[in-house]
Protein backbone atom coordinates (compact mmCIF):
# COMPACT_ATOMS: atom_id res chain seq x y z
CA UNK A 1 0.00 0.00 0.00
CA UNK A 2 2.82 2.45 0.86
CA UNK A 3 5.28 1.33 -1.82
CA UNK A 4 4.95 4.61 -3.75
CA UNK A 5 5.46 6.75 -0.69
CA UNK A 6 8.79 8.23 0.24
CA UNK A 7 10.00 9.76 3.41
CA UNK A 8 9.39 13.42 4.23
CA UNK A 9 11.92 16.22 3.66
CA UNK A 10 11.07 18.88 6.27
CA UNK A 11 11.98 22.46 5.28
CA UNK A 12 11.70 25.11 7.98
CA UNK A 13 12.25 28.74 7.00
CA UNK A 14 12.78 31.70 9.35
CA UNK A 15 13.28 29.45 12.31
CA UNK A 16 14.06 32.42 14.56
CA UNK A 17 11.04 34.52 13.53
CA UNK A 18 9.12 33.89 16.76
CA UNK A 19 11.97 34.32 19.19
CA UNK A 20 13.19 37.49 17.45
CA UNK A 21 9.92 39.13 18.38
CA UNK A 22 10.87 38.61 21.99
CA UNK A 23 14.51 39.66 21.67
CA UNK A 24 15.15 42.17 24.38
CA UNK A 25 18.32 41.89 26.46
CA UNK A 26 16.64 43.87 29.23
CA UNK A 27 13.78 41.34 29.57
CA UNK A 28 15.29 37.95 28.97
CA UNK A 29 12.58 35.95 30.73
CA UNK A 30 9.80 36.87 28.36
CA UNK A 31 10.72 34.45 25.57
CA UNK A 32 11.65 31.46 27.72
CA UNK A 33 8.36 31.69 29.60
CA UNK A 34 6.19 32.30 26.55
CA UNK A 35 3.65 29.89 25.06
CA UNK A 36 5.33 30.31 21.66
CA UNK A 37 8.62 29.01 23.06
CA UNK A 38 6.91 25.96 24.56
CA UNK A 39 5.04 25.32 21.31
CA UNK A 40 8.22 25.42 19.21
CA UNK A 41 10.09 23.13 21.60
CA UNK A 42 7.24 20.63 21.47
CA UNK A 43 7.10 20.82 17.67
CA UNK A 44 10.78 19.95 17.31
CA UNK A 45 10.52 17.19 19.90
CA UNK A 46 7.75 15.65 17.78
CA UNK A 47 9.81 16.13 14.61
CA UNK A 48 12.72 14.31 16.22
CA UNK A 49 10.41 11.46 17.14
CA UNK A 50 9.38 11.09 13.49
CA UNK A 51 12.93 10.72 12.19
CA UNK A 52 13.13 6.98 12.66
CA UNK A 53 9.63 6.07 11.55
CA UNK A 54 9.30 4.01 8.33
CA UNK A 55 7.44 6.80 6.51
CA UNK A 56 8.60 9.64 8.71
CA UNK A 57 11.07 12.45 8.24
CA UNK A 58 14.22 11.52 6.36
CA UNK A 59 15.91 14.90 6.21
CA UNK A 60 15.36 18.31 7.69
CA UNK A 61 16.73 21.67 6.52
CA UNK A 62 16.27 24.72 8.73
CA UNK A 63 17.09 28.31 7.79
CA UNK A 64 17.12 31.36 10.02
CA UNK A 65 18.97 29.98 12.98
CA UNK A 66 21.04 32.03 15.39
CA UNK A 67 22.99 31.25 18.57
CA UNK A 68 20.04 32.60 20.54
CA UNK A 69 17.60 30.13 19.04
CA UNK A 70 20.01 27.22 19.18
CA UNK A 71 20.49 27.50 22.91
CA UNK A 72 17.03 26.31 23.91
CA UNK A 73 14.66 25.72 21.00
CA UNK A 74 16.56 22.78 19.67
CA UNK A 75 16.95 21.07 23.03
CA UNK A 76 14.23 18.72 21.86
CA UNK A 77 15.91 18.38 18.45
CA UNK A 78 19.54 17.92 19.41
CA UNK A 79 20.40 15.90 16.32
CA UNK A 80 20.81 18.92 14.01
CA UNK A 81 24.15 20.17 12.71
CA UNK A 82 24.86 23.88 12.25
CA UNK A 83 26.04 24.28 8.64
CA UNK A 84 25.64 28.05 8.41
CA UNK A 85 29.20 28.76 7.38
CA UNK A 86 30.16 25.62 5.50
CA UNK A 87 31.65 26.03 2.03
CA UNK A 88 29.14 23.68 0.38
CA UNK A 89 26.21 25.92 1.32
CA UNK A 90 27.90 29.33 1.14
CA UNK A 91 26.46 30.16 -2.29
CA UNK A 92 22.95 29.00 -1.50
CA UNK A 93 21.54 32.26 -0.19
CA UNK A 94 22.57 34.81 -2.78
CA UNK A 95 23.33 35.59 -6.40
CA UNK A 96 26.83 35.51 -7.81
CA UNK A 97 28.31 37.98 -10.27
CA UNK A 98 27.62 35.70 -13.24
CA UNK A 99 23.92 35.58 -12.29
CA UNK A 100 23.77 39.38 -12.16
CA UNK A 101 25.63 39.89 -15.44
CA UNK A 102 23.46 37.28 -17.22
CA UNK A 103 20.32 39.15 -16.16
CA UNK A 104 21.76 42.52 -17.13
CA UNK A 105 22.74 41.28 -20.57
CA UNK A 106 19.03 40.76 -21.26
CA UNK A 107 18.15 44.23 -20.00
CA UNK A 108 20.95 46.56 -21.03
CA UNK A 109 21.73 47.85 -24.49
CA UNK A 110 25.46 48.42 -23.98
CA UNK A 111 28.41 47.00 -22.08
CA UNK A 112 28.81 50.35 -20.37
CA UNK A 113 25.29 50.08 -18.95
CA UNK A 114 26.03 46.59 -17.65
CA UNK A 115 29.22 47.78 -15.96
CA UNK A 116 27.41 50.71 -14.39
CA UNK A 117 24.69 48.52 -12.92
CA UNK A 118 27.19 45.92 -11.68
CA UNK A 119 29.19 48.64 -9.98
CA UNK A 120 26.09 49.98 -8.24
CA UNK A 121 24.96 46.54 -7.09
CA UNK A 122 28.48 45.68 -5.93
CA UNK A 123 28.54 48.72 -3.68
CA UNK A 124 25.08 48.26 -2.21
CA UNK A 125 24.12 44.59 -2.31
CA UNK A 126 27.28 42.50 -2.65
CA UNK A 127 29.84 41.35 -0.10
CA UNK A 128 28.22 38.41 1.69
CA UNK A 129 30.90 35.81 2.33
CA UNK A 130 29.17 33.00 4.19
CA UNK A 131 32.14 30.62 4.44
CA UNK A 132 34.43 30.82 7.46
CA UNK A 133 37.33 28.55 6.56
CA UNK A 134 38.25 29.34 2.95
CA UNK A 135 37.97 32.05 0.31
CA UNK A 136 34.92 31.87 -1.95
CA UNK A 137 33.11 34.30 -4.24
CA UNK A 138 30.96 36.68 -2.16
CA UNK A 139 27.28 36.76 -3.10
CA UNK A 140 24.79 39.56 -3.70
CA UNK A 141 21.67 40.00 -1.58
CA UNK A 142 18.94 38.31 -3.62
CA UNK A 143 16.00 40.51 -2.67
CA UNK A 144 17.74 43.82 -3.21
CA UNK A 145 19.34 42.67 -6.46
CA UNK A 146 16.08 41.36 -7.92
CA UNK A 147 14.18 44.50 -7.00
CA UNK A 148 16.89 46.63 -8.57
CA UNK A 149 16.97 44.47 -11.71
CA UNK A 150 13.20 44.50 -11.99
CA UNK A 151 13.04 48.29 -11.91
CA UNK A 152 15.96 48.50 -14.37
CA UNK A 153 14.13 46.08 -16.65
CA UNK A 154 10.87 48.04 -16.50
CA UNK A 155 12.65 51.30 -17.20
CA UNK A 156 14.53 49.78 -20.14
CA UNK A 157 11.23 48.41 -21.46
CA UNK A 158 9.56 51.80 -21.18
CA UNK A 159 12.50 53.49 -22.88
CA UNK A 160 12.04 51.14 -25.84
CA UNK A 161 8.28 51.66 -25.91
CA UNK A 162 8.55 55.42 -25.98
CA UNK A 163 11.44 55.72 -28.40
Amino acid at each position, binding site marked *: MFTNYHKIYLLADEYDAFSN*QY*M*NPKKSQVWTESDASALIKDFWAVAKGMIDLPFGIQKCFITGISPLTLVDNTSGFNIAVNMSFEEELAGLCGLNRADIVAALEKICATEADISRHVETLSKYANGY*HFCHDCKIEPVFNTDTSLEYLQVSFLNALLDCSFS
Partner: protein
Amino acid sequence: MRGKKFNIANPPNSEVSQRFLDMCASSPGAVAYIQQALMGQPDKKARYHLIPYPDLVDRFSLEDLQSSALGDVEETVFCTLLLYFGAFTFHKENPTKYLTIPNHIVAKRFGSTILRGYRLISSMQNAVRFLALDGNIIAPLQGYQELMVARDIKHHGYSMTEAQHRDSFHIAILENPALDPQVEYQVTKVSLIPFSS
Protein backbone atom coordinates in the same frame (compact mmCIF):
# COMPACT_ATOMS: atom_id res chain seq x y z
CA MET B 1 4.57 55.28 -14.88
CA ARG B 2 7.67 56.14 -16.82
CA GLY B 3 10.95 56.16 -14.94
CA LYS B 4 10.00 54.15 -11.85
CA LYS B 5 12.50 54.84 -9.08
CA PHE B 6 14.15 52.33 -6.78
CA ASN B 7 16.35 53.79 -4.09
CA ILE B 8 18.94 51.07 -3.74
CA ALA B 9 20.56 52.87 -0.82
CA ASN B 10 17.39 52.32 1.16
CA PRO B 11 15.58 49.22 -0.12
CA PRO B 12 12.20 48.30 1.37
CA ASN B 13 13.39 44.91 2.56
CA SER B 14 15.96 44.98 5.32
CA GLU B 15 18.99 42.76 5.41
CA VAL B 16 19.23 43.50 9.10
CA SER B 17 15.91 43.70 10.93
CA GLN B 18 14.98 47.02 12.48
CA ARG B 19 14.22 45.30 15.78
CA PHE B 20 17.74 43.93 15.92
CA LEU B 21 19.22 47.28 14.95
CA ASP B 22 17.27 49.02 17.70
CA MET B 23 18.49 46.46 20.20
CA CYS B 24 22.08 47.05 19.08
CA ALA B 25 21.68 50.80 19.46
CA SER B 26 20.74 50.34 23.11
CA SER B 27 23.79 48.17 23.84
CA PRO B 28 27.12 49.96 24.24
CA GLY B 29 28.98 46.74 23.43
CA ALA B 30 27.24 46.45 20.08
CA VAL B 31 27.67 50.15 19.33
CA ALA B 32 31.41 49.84 19.98
CA TYR B 33 31.63 46.98 17.46
CA ILE B 34 29.55 48.85 14.90
CA GLN B 35 31.60 51.99 15.28
CA GLN B 36 34.82 50.05 14.94
CA ALA B 37 33.51 48.28 11.85
CA LEU B 38 32.45 51.51 10.14
CA MET B 39 35.99 52.85 10.15
CA GLY B 40 37.79 52.46 6.84
CA GLN B 41 41.09 50.64 6.76
CA PRO B 42 44.02 53.07 7.06
CA ASP B 43 45.64 51.58 3.96
CA LYS B 44 42.33 51.94 2.00
CA LYS B 45 42.53 48.28 0.98
CA ALA B 46 39.11 47.66 2.49
CA ARG B 47 36.15 50.02 2.68
CA TYR B 48 35.28 48.95 6.22
CA HIS B 49 37.37 48.01 9.21
CA LEU B 50 38.24 44.37 9.75
CA ILE B 51 37.08 42.87 13.05
CA PRO B 52 39.22 40.00 14.39
CA TYR B 53 37.16 37.07 15.66
CA PRO B 54 39.22 34.55 17.61
CA ASP B 55 36.27 32.72 19.15
CA LEU B 56 32.72 33.01 17.94
CA VAL B 57 30.16 31.61 20.32
CA ASP B 58 28.05 28.68 19.09
CA ARG B 59 25.06 29.32 21.26
CA PHE B 60 24.12 31.66 24.08
CA SER B 61 21.03 32.82 25.90
CA LEU B 62 19.37 36.20 26.25
CA GLU B 63 20.75 36.28 29.79
CA ASP B 64 24.27 36.13 28.32
CA LEU B 65 23.33 38.93 25.95
CA GLN B 66 21.99 40.94 28.85
CA SER B 67 25.28 40.60 30.70
CA SER B 68 27.15 41.58 27.58
CA ALA B 69 24.90 44.61 27.02
CA LEU B 70 25.79 45.84 30.49
CA GLY B 71 29.47 45.27 29.86
CA ASP B 72 29.81 42.52 32.46
CA VAL B 73 31.24 39.81 30.23
CA GLU B 74 33.27 39.44 27.07
CA GLU B 75 31.43 41.06 24.16
CA THR B 76 32.09 38.21 21.73
CA VAL B 77 28.41 37.30 21.93
CA PHE B 78 27.49 40.56 20.22
CA CYS B 79 30.12 40.02 17.56
CA THR B 80 28.63 36.58 16.88
CA LEU B 81 25.09 37.88 16.83
CA LEU B 82 26.03 40.66 14.41
CA LEU B 83 27.40 37.98 12.10
CA TYR B 84 24.29 35.80 12.25
CA PHE B 85 21.94 38.74 11.67
CA GLY B 86 23.75 39.85 8.51
CA ALA B 87 25.39 42.92 9.96
CA PHE B 88 28.84 41.38 9.59
CA THR B 89 30.19 38.84 7.14
CA PHE B 90 33.47 37.00 6.82
CA HIS B 91 36.16 39.05 5.11
CA LYS B 92 36.60 37.77 1.56
CA GLU B 93 40.40 37.83 1.65
CA ASN B 94 40.89 36.42 5.12
CA PRO B 95 37.69 34.72 6.26
CA THR B 96 39.35 32.66 8.97
CA LYS B 97 40.46 35.73 10.91
CA TYR B 98 38.29 38.74 10.17
CA LEU B 99 34.70 39.92 9.95
CA THR B 100 33.60 43.06 8.15
CA ILE B 101 30.51 45.01 7.06
CA PRO B 102 29.34 43.54 3.74
CA ASN B 103 28.13 46.62 1.88
CA HIS B 104 26.94 50.22 1.95
CA ILE B 105 23.31 49.44 2.76
CA VAL B 106 24.31 47.71 6.00
CA ALA B 107 26.78 50.48 6.83
CA LYS B 108 24.16 53.15 6.32
CA ARG B 109 21.62 51.28 8.45
CA PHE B 110 24.18 50.96 11.22
CA GLY B 111 25.11 54.63 11.02
CA SER B 112 21.51 55.78 11.20
CA THR B 113 20.80 53.30 14.01
CA ILE B 114 23.52 54.79 16.19
CA LEU B 115 22.25 58.32 15.64
CA ARG B 116 18.57 57.38 15.89
CA GLY B 117 19.23 55.39 19.05
CA TYR B 118 20.56 58.53 20.72
CA ARG B 119 17.92 60.80 19.12
CA LEU B 120 20.56 62.64 17.17
CA ILE B 121 19.75 61.82 13.58
CA SER B 122 17.87 64.97 12.58
CA SER B 123 20.02 67.35 14.62
CA MET B 124 23.21 65.76 13.30
CA GLN B 125 22.05 66.01 9.70
CA ASN B 126 21.72 69.76 10.18
CA ALA B 127 24.89 70.03 12.24
CA VAL B 128 27.02 68.34 9.61
CA ARG B 129 25.42 70.43 6.86
CA PHE B 130 26.19 73.67 8.72
CA LEU B 131 29.69 72.44 9.42
CA ALA B 132 30.20 72.09 5.69
CA LEU B 133 28.55 75.43 4.91
CA ASP B 134 30.14 77.75 7.46
CA GLY B 135 32.57 75.66 9.47
CA ASN B 136 30.48 75.78 12.65
CA ILE B 137 31.88 72.95 14.80
CA ILE B 138 29.79 73.67 17.92
CA ALA B 139 26.64 71.75 16.91
CA PRO B 140 28.51 68.53 15.98
CA LEU B 141 30.49 68.76 19.22
CA GLN B 142 27.28 69.19 21.22
CA GLY B 143 25.91 66.11 19.49
CA TYR B 144 29.01 64.15 20.37
CA GLN B 145 28.73 65.29 23.98
CA GLU B 146 25.19 63.86 24.07
CA LEU B 147 26.43 60.67 22.43
CA MET B 148 29.17 60.26 25.05
CA VAL B 149 26.79 60.85 27.96
CA ALA B 150 24.24 58.39 26.59
CA ARG B 151 26.84 55.68 26.06
CA ASP B 152 28.72 56.22 29.28
CA ILE B 153 27.07 53.44 31.29
CA LYS B 154 29.93 50.93 31.38
CA HIS B 155 32.53 50.48 34.06
CA HIS B 156 35.63 52.60 33.51
CA GLY B 157 33.72 54.76 31.03
CA TYR B 158 35.98 57.72 31.77
CA SER B 159 39.13 55.84 30.89
CA MET B 160 38.78 56.33 27.15
CA THR B 161 41.86 57.83 25.57
CA GLU B 162 41.95 61.00 23.50
CA ALA B 163 42.51 58.90 20.41
CA GLN B 164 39.41 56.83 21.14
CA HIS B 165 37.33 59.98 21.56
CA ARG B 166 38.74 61.38 18.34
CA ASP B 167 37.94 58.20 16.42
CA SER B 168 34.49 58.02 17.92
CA PHE B 169 33.70 61.59 16.92
CA HIS B 170 35.14 61.01 13.48
CA ILE B 171 33.22 57.80 12.76
CA ALA B 172 29.97 58.28 14.66
CA ILE B 173 29.42 61.82 13.40
CA LEU B 174 31.69 63.14 10.69
CA GLU B 175 31.86 60.00 8.55
CA ASN B 176 28.54 58.50 9.51
CA PRO B 177 27.15 56.72 6.42
CA ALA B 178 23.62 57.77 7.39
CA LEU B 179 24.51 61.42 6.88
CA ASP B 180 26.05 60.87 3.44
CA PRO B 181 28.96 63.19 4.21
CA GLN B 182 30.98 64.36 1.24
CA VAL B 183 34.66 65.15 1.47
CA GLU B 184 35.04 68.68 0.17
CA TYR B 185 38.78 69.16 0.29
CA GLN B 186 41.72 66.81 0.39
CA VAL B 187 43.79 67.75 3.43
CA THR B 188 47.38 66.63 3.70
CA LYS B 189 49.11 66.62 7.04
CA VAL B 190 52.32 68.66 6.86
CA SER B 191 55.37 66.84 8.12
CA LEU B 192 57.73 68.80 10.33
CA ILE B 193 60.58 66.47 9.60
CA PRO B 194 62.87 68.05 6.99
CA PHE B 195 63.49 66.14 3.80
CA SER B 196 66.85 64.41 3.83
CA SER B 197 69.13 65.37 1.01
